[in-house]
């Protein structure tokens, strides 16, 4: 086993481990806000790890740039979607977004 394949294996194991930790949080938490907190790392860390693994394996090739694009879209859209869902949950629950006194 070469050094690069060892690094790829470690990165992929870390990606799967973070996803499963987030899934555990998703199962354990009871309300949508806590669940959003639990799954937040899943849209940041695993795409980073997978993109890094592909770059280590392939280098900066055309496929490497496509994987970077996918990871970037996931990383940018994750927090935006989290915010949109939390906002929708709040409005669905209370009928308004503003805090009451």
């Amino acid at each position, binding site marked *: 086993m070469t050094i690069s394949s060892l690094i790829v294996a470690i990165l*992929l194991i870390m990606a*799967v481990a973070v*996803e499963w930790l987030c899934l555990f949080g998703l199962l354990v938490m009871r309300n949508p806000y806590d669940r959003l907190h639990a799954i937040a790392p899943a849209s940041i860390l695993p795409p980073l790890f*997978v993109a890094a693994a592909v770059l280590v394996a392939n280098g900066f090739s055309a496929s490497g740039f496509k994987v970077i694009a*996918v990871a970037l879209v996931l990383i940018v859209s994750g927090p935006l979607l989290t915010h949109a869902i939390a906002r*929708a949950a709040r409005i669905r629950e209370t009928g308004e977004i503003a805090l009451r006194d």
Partner: protein
Amino acid sequence: MNIWLWSALGLVLGFVPCGWVITRARMMGSLVALQMAAGICTLVLLLIAQGLHRPSFLDIPLAFVLLTYPATLLFAHFFERWL
């Protein structure tokens, strides 16, 4: 099977808890689990493309992740008041 496909398999199993939450939780909890499942699906498609040594398959996760964003926003918008 290589390390990429084993990782994809490890992530595919994550659809089980997502499906459990989608079917058991209330509306907004289901939407959270759906977002999680979409992220997992994107990574699984990436890993399959890499594991099968088919760079052209990488267009599928790219299209999927670009479609997931407005789809989840639409779900959130309609769950906000109308559904």
